[in-house]
Each structure stands twice: as structure tokens, then as C-alpha cells.
């Protein structure tokens, strides 16, 4: 439920370019990363953006390839808005919000070339690996697209193949190899969603802020070589954007990419160090 007073407060704050929690318009909440939160998964991570927490688990499967990509593995992304994470979520079939969010995250990963799908082929036309990227919301305080997208990337990077019995053509679940997934680290896509309220545009809203925004634009950026590339975009909500606004958001998204990129590298370094100490 949105109270008019909330909208008024948020609007007044963003018009002064200072958010209710004191942040600037293009500033993230503190981001916290914890790997290995679920040990049966091939890879897992918890990502927090302030009070928002998303857990991502990677599971692997073996299946027949699709007829139009006979030598490529497959990937499925799904998101569950767990009723535990918010009084607004209910049990039942995935809501349109969950479906859309998962599809946006899926597109950025797929289109960037981050996963080398050919290397997931076990036997041409017969058996390929499938990657399941499952996102679960633990606590919803807004900006689930960006938090989910970051969790998916980090979980993929931490994942390892399970043992595979070639004779029985079955996975030995619970037994892990040291082999990481075939990822192109330099094609890693990172996601920023811009939200619009009145004439102002800002990122990483809390649930309170997000509820009163009029629209959003998600931009997924990678930097395979020297130049930033856009791999996916999605406008959501009823707001309209001018071409100038879109161009400005595209430009900002490349700057935010740099920040997120160094955050990811630092977290991976930290995780590696911790693993060694164990």
C-alpha cells in the first residue's frame, strides 16, 4: 500500500538530490557478499543491498540439447519472491514481477557471452549440461533486479561441476569436482536499474522509494574489450523517457559498471584468500 505522504516525502528528498537515508541519487546502499550459503548447491551466494537480501543457488543438470543448438548447454533463470521475505508476497504461481525480473537477469547473462555454452556439451546432439540459476528473495527492501543480477553472476563464478558418471550418464549429486564453470570473466555483465520519480532519476531504491517510482530502465553492461557494450535493456512501469534521459542513463550505467566491477573483483579475491586459510 502506498501512502500519498510517502510519495511526497520521497519526491521532496530526491528533488533536493538527497535521499531519505542520506544517499545521493546515484549511490548504492552498502553491498555485502557472502559465498557458500548452501552447501548442496554447485555454487551459492547471498547478496545484500542494504536490507535487501537475495540468495542465489546454482544447480547443474544433464539433459538433451535443444534442436536448434545441438552442441550447446542450456541455462534457466528463475526467481521466487518468498512470502517469508515480505508481507506483500503470497504463495502460488510465480507473479509477473518474479517472471519479468528473472527474464531480465537471464538476458544479460545470455547475451553477454559470459557463459561459454559450447563447453557445456557432453555429447553432440545427445547430452549437454544445463545450468539452473535459482534466485530466492530472503528480505525485500527494493531493487531486486540489481541485487538478483549481481547474485547470479557471483554464484556462477563460485560454482563447480558435480561428478558425472559417464557410464550411467548420471550426475553423482553431492560429489563435487574442482572444475569451475566455463565462464568468460572479461565478458561479465553487470546490471544497473534507474528509477524515475517526477523529473529525477536515481538508483538502488529502498522498497519505500521503489513503491512510489513511476518507471524504471534496466541496463546490463559488459566490457569485453576496451569499450563498454550494452547486452540488455528493459523499460518497466508507466513512466515515459525522453531520448536524452535514456542517453544519460546509458552513460551513467558505464560508470557504475566500473564501480561494480571492482567490487566483484575484490569479493572474489577475498573469497579466494579465505578458502586458502581454511
Amino acid at each position, binding site marked *: 500500500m502506498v501512502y500519498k505522504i510517502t510519495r511526497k516525502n520521497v519526491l521532496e528528498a530526491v528533488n533536493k538530490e538527497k535521499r531519505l537515508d542520506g544517499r545521493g541519487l546515484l549511490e548504492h546502499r552498502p553491498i555485502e557478499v557472502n559465498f557458500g550459503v548452501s552447501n548442496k548447491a554447485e555454487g551459492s551466494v547471498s547478496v545484500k543491498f542494504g536490507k535487501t537480501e537475495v540468495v542465489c543457488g546454482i544447480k547443474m543438470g544433464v539433459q538433451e540439447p535443444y534442436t536448434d543448438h545441438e552442441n550447446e548447454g542450456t541455462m534457466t533463470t528463475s526467481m521466487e519472491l518468498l512470502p517469508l521475505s515480505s508481507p506483500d508476497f503470497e504463495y502460488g504461481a510465480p507473479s509477473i514481477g518474479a517472471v519479468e525480473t528473472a527474464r531480465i537477469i537471464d538476458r544479460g547473462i*545470455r547475451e553477454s557471452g559470459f557463459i561459454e555454452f559450447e563447453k557445456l556439451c557432453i555429447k553432440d546432439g545427445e547430452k549437454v549440461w544445463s545450468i539452473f540459476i535459482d534466485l530466492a528473495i530472503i528480505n525485500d527492501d527494493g531493487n531486486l533486479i540489481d541485487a538478483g543480477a549481481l547474485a547470479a553472476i557471483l554464484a556462477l563464478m563460485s560454482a563447480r561441476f558435480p561428478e558425472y558418471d559417464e557410464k550411467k550418464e548420471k550426475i553423482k549429486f553431492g560429489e563435487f569436482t574442482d572444475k569451475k564453470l566455463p565462464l568468460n570473466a572479461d565478458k561479465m555483465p553487470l546490471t544497473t536499474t534507474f528509477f524515475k520519480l517526477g523529473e529525477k532519476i536515481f538508483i538502488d531504491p529502498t522498497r519505500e522509494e521503489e513503491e512510489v517510482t513511476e518507471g524504471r530502465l534496466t541496463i546490463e553492461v559488459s566490457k569485453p574489450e576496451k569499450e*563498454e557494450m550494452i*547486452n540488455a*535493456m528493459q*523499460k*518497466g512501469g508507466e513512466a*515515459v*523517457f525522453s*531520448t536524452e534521459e*535514456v542517453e544519460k542513463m546509458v552513460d551513467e550505467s558505464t560508470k557504475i559498471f566500473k564501480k561494480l566491477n571492482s567490487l566483484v573483483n575484490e569479493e572474489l579475491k577475498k573469497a579466494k584468500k579465505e578458502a586458502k586459510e581454511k
Partner: protein
Amino acid sequence: MAYTKRFDGRKIDELRETSAKIGVVPNADGSALFKQGDTIAIAAVYGPKILNPKHCQNPEKGVLRVHYNMLSFSVSERIRPGLSRRSQEISKVTEWALSPLVLLDELPGTVIDVHINILQANAGTRCAGINAAAMALAAAGVPMTEMISAVAVGKIDDKIVTDVTKEEEDYEDGEGATDIPVAFLSNSGKLTLLQLDGRIQAKRMKEALEAGKEACKKIFEIQKKALKEVE
């Protein structure tokens, strides 16, 4: 090999043969067919009507509901009939594309149902659907501020092209294919639909948006002409 000539011989900023027709579903309050090359979308509008069950009503404004559906035989490999994750998402983005131009504030307690069906698909189905739906809304006499026109621009290899076909969408050489469906309002020139998938240099987005805007102006003329032909 670089993509220097389009598969169907069009200029890079040229639309496919486009036609539009009003009143294809006599039962509906407004309906339209929009054909863009081999892609055909039919849209029917029912409403504004009282929204039932009553608890779904919004006492402050009307509700616009879009149902996008691809007919199972509209593509080469049959698709399972019914709701898919893809069709749910397209329904939602189409709602967002259309809502800004409908004066929903003047229609509290009501619903406008927009049903879009794709009869034949060769890329750009959501755009054709939006074009048909906008015309159907106008034909139904729904109060609107302006019209909307949509087109899929794209980057095929290193060329920004207008109105992408399936064959172009599947282009894999060079820089590959990037698909960018956009919708522009007819008066204010603002965007109400923007999606992208593929890989495009951030610096070239401006060029792509310009191409989309120009193409939408042409589509708007076709929509307007069809609407005027109705007696």
C-alpha cells in the same frame, strides 16, 4: 563477411511493407490488424467496462489489461498454446507502453481489455502488437492523449537497421545481432517501450534511438491513414 546488404534488399532505414486495417473483429469495441512484412498482429479492445470482481476495481483510475498471445501455428516449430513466461512479460511491457497515452484517470472503476494475437510471426511481434493495439484503442473511442507507434530497430553486425526480420535476428557473423524494440509517442516523441538484447556499444545507442524515432513517424502515418478510412 560483413553485413553490407540486407537479406531482403531493403535500405538500412527502410520498413518492410506495412499495412493496417481497422475493424477486423466486428464483436469488439475496437479492433485492428497490423501487418509488418510477414508479421501479422490482430488486436481487439473490449471496454471501458465495469471491472468485475468488484474488489479488483480501482476507484481512482481505470485499469488497462493487455493479453499478448502467439498462436501455436504462427512460427515454424509449433509453440505450446497458452501462457508462457515470454508472453506474460510481453503483455506487461505492452501494458506499460500503452498506459501512458490512455486517459485512465477519467475511467475509474473500469477495465479496458486489449487482446493481441499474433497470426503470423517473423520478428517484431510485440511492436506489431502495440501498433495494432493503439489503433484498436483509438477505434474503440477510448480517450487518449496521443498515439503510439513501435518498431524493432537493431544492430546487425555493425549496421544500425530498422525493422529487423527473423533472419536478421539470427545473424551471427561479425558483431552479431542486437534487437531493440522501441515505441515512441506521436506528439511528445517520448519512449514508452524500450528493450534490448544483444551487444551494442554504449556510444551507439543514440544512433539506434534516432533510427527508431524516424521509423515510428512513418508508422504513425500508416496508422493515421487507416483510422481515417473508417467511416
